C-alpha cells in the first residue's frame, strides 16, 4: 500500500514528463560545457576566433582612435624637449655630414700626397744629414701610430663624469673631467664666436679630442701621430658610442614607462664604462 508521499511522486511522473526530459537535457548540456571548460584545446577552439576578431578590430581602429593622441603627444614632447631631440639626431646627422666631408677631404689629401711625397722624403733626408737622427728613426716616428689612452663621457654644464675608460691608471678621472670642463668653458666663454666649441687640446705628446653634444661631451686622450685620418676614425667611434649611449637612455625611459626598471636612476656608470671599453678599448685609429 503506497503512502501519501509515494502517491505524490507517481502523480508528478505522470503530470511532468516533458519537464523531466527538459531537465535531463539541461544537465547533459552542463556536463558538456564543463568538459569544454576543463579541456584547454576545446576551450581554445571556441574562444580563440572571438579574441582574434576583437584583436583585429582593435588593431585596425588604432590609427583612428589612438593615432591622433599619439601624434599630439609626440608633437608636444618634441616641442618641450627640443634639446633631447637634437641630442638624439645629432650623432646621425653629424655622422652623415662628417663622412661626406671626410671622404672629399681624403680624396684631396691623397692627391696632394701624391704630388708632394718626394718633398717629404727629401725633407727627411736633409734632417738626417744635418741632425742627429737616422732617416729610419725619422721614418718610424712619422709612422708612429696614434693610440687612444683615455676616454671620458662628461656632462656638459656641470662637468660631472658619467663614465671613463683608461688604459693606464691616472689621477682622479672626476677631477680631470672637472678641469677639462672648466678649461673648455673658459675658452668658449673667452673666445665665443657664434656658439663654437673647443675641439682639440694639444699637450706635448698628447692630444685631447673633444666632441660636444647638447647635454654631454666626449673627450678622447690620444698619444702618437694624430693625423686627419685618425681624427676621422676617432670621430666615428665617438658618434657610434654616443648613439649607443642615447639608445641606452631611451631604453631606460621605455622601461620606466612600462613599469620595468628600478628607481628611475640614469644609466649606471658601470654600464657606460662597459660601452666605452667596447667601443674604444681595442680600436685602431
Amino acid at each position, binding site marked *: 500500500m503506497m503512502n501519501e508521499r509515494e502517491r505524490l511522486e507517481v502523480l508528478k511522473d505522470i503530470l511532468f514528463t516533458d519537464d523531466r526530459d527538459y531537465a535531463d537535457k539541461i544537465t547533459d548540456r552542463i556536463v558538456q560545457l564543463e568538459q569544454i571548460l576543463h579541456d584547454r584545446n576545446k576551450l581554445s577552439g571556441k574562444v580563440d576566433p572571438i579574441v582574434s576578431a576583437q584583436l583585429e578590430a582593435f588593431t585596425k581602429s588604432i590609427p583612428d582612435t589612438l593615432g591622433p593622441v599619439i601624434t599630439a603627444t609626440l608633437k608636444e614632447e618634441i616641442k618641450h624637449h627640443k634639446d633631447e631631440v637634437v641630442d638624439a639626431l645629432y650623432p646621425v646627422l653629424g655622422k652623415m655630414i662628417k663622412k661626406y666631408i671626410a671622404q672629399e677631404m681624403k680624396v684631396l689629401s691623397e692627391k696632394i700626397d701624391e704630388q708632394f711625397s718626394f718633398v717629404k722624403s727629401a725633407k727627411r733626408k736633409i734632417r738626417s744629414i744635418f741632425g742627429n737622427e737616422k732617416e729610419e728613426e725619422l721614418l718610424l716616428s712619422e709612422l708612429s701610430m696614434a693610440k687612444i689612452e683615455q676616454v671620458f663621457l662628461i656632462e656638459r654644464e656641470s662637468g660631472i663624469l658619467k663614465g671613463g675608460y683608461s688604459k693606464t691608471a691616472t689621477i682622479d678621472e*672626476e*677631477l680631470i673631467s672637472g678641469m677639462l670642463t672648466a*678649461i673648455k*668653458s*673658459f675658452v668658449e666663454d673667452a673666445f665665443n664666436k657664434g656658439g663654437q666649441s673647443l675641439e682639440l687640446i694639444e699637450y706635448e705628446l698628447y692630444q685631447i679630442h673633444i666632441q660636444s653634444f647638447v647635454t654631454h661631451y666626449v673627450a678622447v686622450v690620444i698619444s702618437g701621430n694624430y693625423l686627419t685620418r685618425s681624427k676621422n676614425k676617432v670621430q666615428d667611434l665617438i658618434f657610434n658610442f654616443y648613439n649607443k649611449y642615447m639608445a641606452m637612455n631611451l631604453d631606460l625611459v621605455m622601461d620606466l614607462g612600462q613599469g620595468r626598471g628600478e628607481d628611475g636612476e640614469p644609466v649606471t656608470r658601470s654600464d657606460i664604462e662597459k660601452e666605452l671599453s667596447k667601443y674604444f678599448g681595442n680600436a685602431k685609429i
Partner: protein
Amino acid sequence: MQKSKKVLLLGHFGVGKTSLIRRFVSDSFSDAYKVTIGVHITKKVVELPSGTSLSMILWDLEGTDELHLIRNAYLMGTHGVIFVFDVTRPATFQNIQRDLDIIQEKVKKVPVLVVGNKMDLVDPADVKRLLEENDIQSDYMTSAKTGDAVNEAFLEMATQLDI
C-alpha cells in the same frame, strides 16, 4: 651607487674659500692654475648617514668683490653653493643679501649655505652682535685654521644634495 654633485664656493677675495677646501679635502692638486682660468677643482667623497656615497666636486672660484662678473659658464650645472664671508671684514658681508640675490638669479633652485669664516680671529660674542645688527643669517661659523665646523658645513651641503 655613488652620486656626483658639483658644489661652488663663492665669496669675496680673501675670505678663505681655498683654505676651507684644503681643510676639508686633505689631498688636493696644486692650485697654481687658478690665476690662469679662475677656478680650482677638488673632490671629496663623503659617506652619508643614509648610506649614500656622494662625490662632491668642489669648484673653488677665484674671489671677486663683484659676483655678477663671474663667468656664467662656471656656474652652469651647479648643484649647490657655499657662500663664504670673512667675519673680520664687514665689507665681505655687508651686502650679503645683494650677493645672495645675484647667486640665486644665476644658479636657480639649488641649496645655498652661508658660512662665516675666520672665527679663530674674533670673539664669537662680538661676531654674533655684529651679524644681528646687520640682520645677517649665517648657517655655519667656521675656522679653516682650527677646523671648527668645517666638516659640518660641507656635510650639511652633502646631506642637502642627497635629498
